[in-house]
């Protein structure tokens, strides 16, 4: 009988899917833009595979970093936004005082 010797499964349904809120935002953005027809989910997935395959970082596997990179690369390819803009705004945000509330 298969069930014998079974210990309690360490993985419950309530497991947190995202490690940090930004990961859920990135996921939500990609799905929203895809649902609005700016790109197909297949296009996004191909870009994501490319990001994962070309990653040379030996450090900790960062799925949502690849996810974010795939999204920005695809949006730039589609000329919907420019990565330069993102770099500038990210620097501005990074320079904010640390007690900012948002």
């Amino acid at each position, binding site marked *: 009988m298969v069930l014998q010797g079974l210990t309690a499964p360490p993985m419950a349904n309530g497991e947190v899917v995202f490690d940090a809120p930004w990961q859920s935002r990135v996921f939500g953005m990609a*799905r929203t833009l895809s649902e609005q027809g700016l790109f197909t989910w297949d296009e996004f997935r191909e870009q994501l595979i490319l990001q994962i395959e070309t990653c040379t970082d030996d450090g900790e596997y960062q799925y949502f970093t690849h996810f974010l990179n795939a999204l920005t690369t695809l949006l730039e390819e589609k000329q919907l936004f420019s990565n330069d803009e993102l770099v500038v705004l*990210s620097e501005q945000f990074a320079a904010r005082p640390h007690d900012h509330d948002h």
Partner: protein
Amino acid sequence: MSDDSPQAIRAEALESILIEKGLLTAEAVDDVITRYSERVGPMNGARLVARAWVDSRFKKRLLTDATAIVESFGFEGGQVEKLVVVENTDKVHNAVVCTLCSCYPWAVLGLPPKWYKDPAYRSRIVMEPRLLLAEMGVVLESDVEIQVWDSSAEIRYMVLPMQPPGTRHLNEEQLAELVTRDSMIGVEILRQPG
């Protein structure tokens, strides 16, 4: 509480730019997150499993043409690629993986758990499935064959778990409550409740 990691800042800046360009709204992003984490969730898959347990004709259809069944249920969640449901028995245990990236049956299981995308899971479930499953709490007798199904862009897999013992008296709705996401990926065996 703020998260000042470079990726968090980059994500925030990206959202801010896309909102300013009128390409999305923060509310739309919120809605998507809620939809995938709550409404789409594993409950859709659980409903299919519970129905299959109580209705043998439905089960036969589910195992032969799950894609059509999912379409007839009208689950939301965007993409419904070809879905194949594989049945666990006393002799065969099925588990699902995506070795290439993280293909997952969103429409029936919602968001993938984070370990599903982990390279360790993706390689070990192929290389040493019996050992990995045991570590995850699924201890199988040596005569139980393990089949690992590699999801792709074209085909997504879902496991039809065995009905736990002592649940014959429950109705479909009560049975659906017992079905977990992990059991439909094949990394959990449902036990008798209580």
